[in-house]
């Protein structure tokens, strides 16, 4: 564990509710995203994440975390999500395939975590785009509006709409490029360590 993770974990084990809450709030969305990737339902995803955190809090004295608190939680979220899917009898073939990957592919979990971290970083980058740029980008990508429709709605020119979308795409592409390089390094580190 990193020194920061270690400090957080010790405080959680000491039943420091404030430390627990701080950690929860700072990390919730990334774990939610992981659960949502499997479950595609916000309420169930929240439930799964909360179940994991509740167990973490209640059993902190018994839980032994060797490598990383974050990857421990990720693993728990993935497993609970698959269990949830099984309970709902959804996509049984896909579940079997995923479970097989979990058991036999040593890098599967790590790749899932990296992909999730990448998505979380991308979404954070969208939040950090300049206001109008973000608005235009979201209207285009998520509302599926045409450029003329966006221009009309916001009272700006089509050229401005194009510039905003281009800028946003370029910024997000840069984020994926940087994180993919880091991810490969981490993958190798973990892979060879095992």
């Amino acid at each position, binding site marked *: 564990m990193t020194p920061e993770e270690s400090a957080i974990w010790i405080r959680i084990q000491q039943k*420091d509710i404030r430390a627990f809450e701080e950690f929860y*709030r700072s990390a919730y*969305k990334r774990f*939610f*995203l992981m659960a*949502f990737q499997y479950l595609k339902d916000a309420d169930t995803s929240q439930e799964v994440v909360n179940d994991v955190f509740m167990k973490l*809090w*209640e059993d902190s004295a018994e839980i032994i975390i060797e490598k990383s608190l974050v990857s421990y939680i990720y693993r728990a979220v993935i497993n609970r999500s698959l269990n949830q899917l099984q309970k709902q009898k959804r996509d049984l073939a896909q579940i079997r395939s995923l479970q097989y990957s979990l058991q036999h592919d040593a890098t599967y979990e790590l790749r899932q975590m990296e992909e999730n971290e990448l998505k979380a970083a991308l979404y954070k980058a969208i939040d950090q785009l300049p206001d109008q740029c973000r608005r235009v980008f979201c209207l285009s*990508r998520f509302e599926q509006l045409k450029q003329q429709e966006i221009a009309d709605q916001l009272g700006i020119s089509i050229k401005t709409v*194009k510039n905003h979308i281009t800028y946003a795409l370029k910024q997000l592409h840069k984020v994926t490029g940087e994180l993919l390089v880091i991810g490969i390094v981490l993958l190798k580190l973990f892979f060879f360590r095992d």
Partner: protein
Amino acid sequence: MKMDSLSEHNIPWDLIADSLQPDFPAEEDARLQQWLAESTANRETYQRARELWAVRLADFSAYQAADEATAWDSLMQQLQEKTTAPVVIMRSGKGHFIRKWTAIAAVLLVMAAGIVWYLLPDRSEQVYATTTTQREIALPDGSSITMQPYTEVRVGGRYNQHERAVQLIKGEAFFKVIHNANLPFLVNMDESSVKDIGTSFNIRRSPDTIKLAVISGKVAFWGKDNQETRELSAGMSLAYDVVKKNFTEWAPSSDQGVTNRENLLYFDHTVLTDVVKQIEKVYGKKIQLGSTAIGERKLKADLQGLSFDKALQVICTSLNLDYTDKNGIIILKDKENK
């Protein structure tokens, strides 16, 4: 990497962005195809952009809608439902177990089977827990709590603002409370609370009993189940049996396994200098020695359960000393040299 950084400037981002949206004009598509045909790197860049647009951004709306504050409240609700003990609420509007005492410090203690309850609404509250060692917590108003091993205490975030409330969740703690008549000090334990104006006392809470010993001041010991109240002053002690729901006699000296504060007042040929340090800590008084010589005199005495005045008398009688009170500071002198 070097090649990537050079080609960054040659990537037609406007063309790529247009291609990912509806109504992509045919002549623009032709330009795109020409660019893609130029190199593998171009095709890889385009593939990444498409993946980003179509796949990686797919869950953004759900991500944006997810609210960690709501999720946290839901988690706390779940934790609350799991515990079985009634909630001790120190917040206003809950109509609590507080009684007003005009001239005395009141301490209400409630027993419950040791169940942990986490207070929610006050997000800045702090929970302290000890494992194998003792720990002292200094509170913002100068009061202090000395926690024995395996003890948990919660201090409200609004401590010393509208209230001075703490909760003894489990274990044993010694409370030294600074006087503030306008803001009584409260110790909560599930079914009872302790209201205190300025005193020091020790509480040991286990699943079937609560043991209280008062060092200084006065307290009221209130049991919710039997609706009985007992007043204890300095030097007195009492226990409440959670199972039988009644008060029982208890003296710290008779309890071999007790790890409470009172054991610190047992001196076995202890030099006076050290005795004074201990007395100061326990009773919160200031004591000075009239000479360094008397500091070497040794005391053998058990002062536990005694008030400060009585303890002082024992010390003076045992070591042939006398004392004076100068502006609240006790000065010990050799009797013969007075």
